[in-house]
């Protein structure tokens, strides 16, 4: 059974539809990478799951965590789930910590809230987790203020903090985008180890295909507020079914080694969510565009272990030449 099931999620900000029927599921202990260009709706998806969208946003569809419906849940219900069962790590480690509170105080607070732990017990657990995210001298770190730590260290503190109450699902929204490349690799390694050790499910949001290929069992590709393709990571990367995924891969420079590479740009711009083209949102940029693409939006259809939303995919899955033999370390 799935841990988190998002079904036909639509999010509107007044007249602007930013998510237009997003569906995916994450099983317990599984890692799902959510990829897409900036503005495709990845963060909106995460915020919707956690009930963090502004009160003025309209949210439709279903967000089930185990057997609890989270869409439209009240503050009290959300507070029970957030932190203790679903935790989140944000993109910017510099501003995600309260500058006025010591690391230890901020970490302990979470446990005092969810477990009713004493301050001393909470600090003990906090130190243990700092150790788990490979922060040296955790006891001393607990007494420091955020500005005394480097960016990579703060992000590891945030990961430790997110895992304190032993959640079942961790949502990480571009957790390494704000960090140096070398630090990125370190933080991702910590995340991956912890996930395996703790049997944690992970929703990893990124625009970096390298990050997905290294850290996620399954991946979903978002475009203009929709998931256009989803499947096993290795499969999708070697045999992309959607022209958008293929384009992402095709324009990706082939470099040796495991260095993460930013998504290259594809000709044209992603559509403004306020003025989405009729039919398939990718059609204006698509190399394989057909007449039907400009009139009818394709639906996401599942074929064995792969889903794809493309009229081209109405035929059996396209083996996209050239992409198959690339190396996605």
């Amino acid at each position, binding site marked *: 059974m799935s841990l988190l099931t998002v079904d036909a999620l639509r999010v509107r900000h007044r007249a602007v539809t930013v998510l237009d029927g997003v569906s995916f599921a994450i099983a317990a202990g599984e890692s799902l990478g959510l990829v897409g260009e900036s503005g495709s709706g990845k963060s909106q998806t995460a915020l919707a799951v956690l009930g*963090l969208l502004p009160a003025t946003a309209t949210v439709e569809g279903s967000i089930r965590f185990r057997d609890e419906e989270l869409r439209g849940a009240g503050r009290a219900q959300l*507070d029970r789930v957030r932190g203790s069962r679903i935790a989140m790590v944000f993109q910017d480690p510099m501003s*995600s910590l309260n500058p006025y509170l010591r690391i230890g105080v901020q970490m302990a607070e979470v446990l005092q809230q969810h477990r009713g732990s004493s301050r001393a017990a909470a600090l003990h657990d906090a130190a243990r987790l700092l150790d788990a995210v490979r922060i040296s001298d955790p006891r001393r770190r607990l007494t420091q203020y955020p500005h005394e730590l480097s960016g990579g260290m703060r992000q590891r503190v945030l990961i430790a903090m997110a895992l304190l109450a032993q959640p079942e699902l961790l949502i990480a929204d571009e957790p390494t985008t704000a960090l140096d490349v070398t630090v990125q690799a370190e933080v991702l390694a910590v995340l991956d180890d912890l996930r395996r050790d703790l049997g944690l499910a992970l929703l990893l949001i990124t625009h970096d295909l390298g990050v997905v290929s290294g850290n996620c069992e399954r991946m979903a590709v978002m475009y203009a507020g929709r998931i256009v393709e989803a499947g096993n990571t290795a499969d999708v990367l070697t045999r992309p079914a959607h022209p958008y995924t293929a384009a992402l891969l095709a324009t990706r420079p082939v470099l040796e080694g495991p260095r993460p590479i930013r998504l290259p740009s594809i000709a044209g711009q992603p559509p403004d969510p306020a003025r989405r083209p009729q039919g398939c949102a990718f059609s204006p940029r698509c190399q394989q565009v057909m007449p039907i693409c400009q009139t009818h939006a394709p639906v996401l259809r599942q074929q064995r272990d792969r889903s794809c939303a493309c009229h081209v995919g109405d035929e059996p899955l396209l083996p996209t030449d050239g992409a198959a033999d690339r190396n996605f370390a």
Partner: protein
Amino acid sequence: MKPALLRQPAIAVPAAILLLIVLLAVFGPWLAPQPFDAIDFDAEWGAAPSAAHPFGTDDLGRDLFARVCVGGRLSLAVGLVSTLVSLAIGITWGAVAGWFGGRVDAVMMRVVDILYALPFMFFVILLMVLFGRHELLIFVAIGAVSWLDMARIVRGQTLALRRQPFIDAAVVSGLGNAAILVRHVIPNLLGVVIVCATLTVPQAILVESFLSFLGLGIQEPATSWGALVNDGARAMEATPWGLIFPAGFLVLTLLAFNWLGDALRAALDAPRR
């Protein structure tokens, strides 16, 4: 807040001036030749400053130095108490309005707007006339006016803070509203609150002085700087020191608070690193 702040002359100088004034107000009466309400029958009434009476005497032969110190106690106390009242009400009101937003915010801020629009001085004067000149009434009246600015500023800051990632992080970690407000929002308002409080003190002192100047404030023989200025102004030509000393302290105090507030604002606005 930080010792480093006191190393900036723009902050250290007004802070030092205020410290001296406070020390003088607190300990000055013991140094004075006679109690503030005692009459020196040996000295000339309305005597000029001399070794015996450094600030001279007033037209009843009371030592002006003692009276300026004691008046300072009251003026400073009014400033302090009203500021505390305004802090308590203003922070609570503003933070709750800003945090919950929406309808709660709209209603709470309309209340502030309405209170702003009322001619407060007029009401205070009316109350004083109706209920007599009660010291408590002065405190309440001034406190009631001065929290409005605080509430507006705190609300604005809370709205801005709500968009900070660490507040989102606190929300997703499952902390409740009260915990977030007390632990994460209010401590981060400290900078603006300190600045605003520093600027509220002189306002309150000024309002009290104004009331006293109109003869509606503090009652004889107790006194405040405003009341002393009022007395002094009446005999301005004959005994100018009766006006100069209390007015000088009043102005210096107001200026020092305003300097300090501006300097603190400049210092706290500078990017934190």
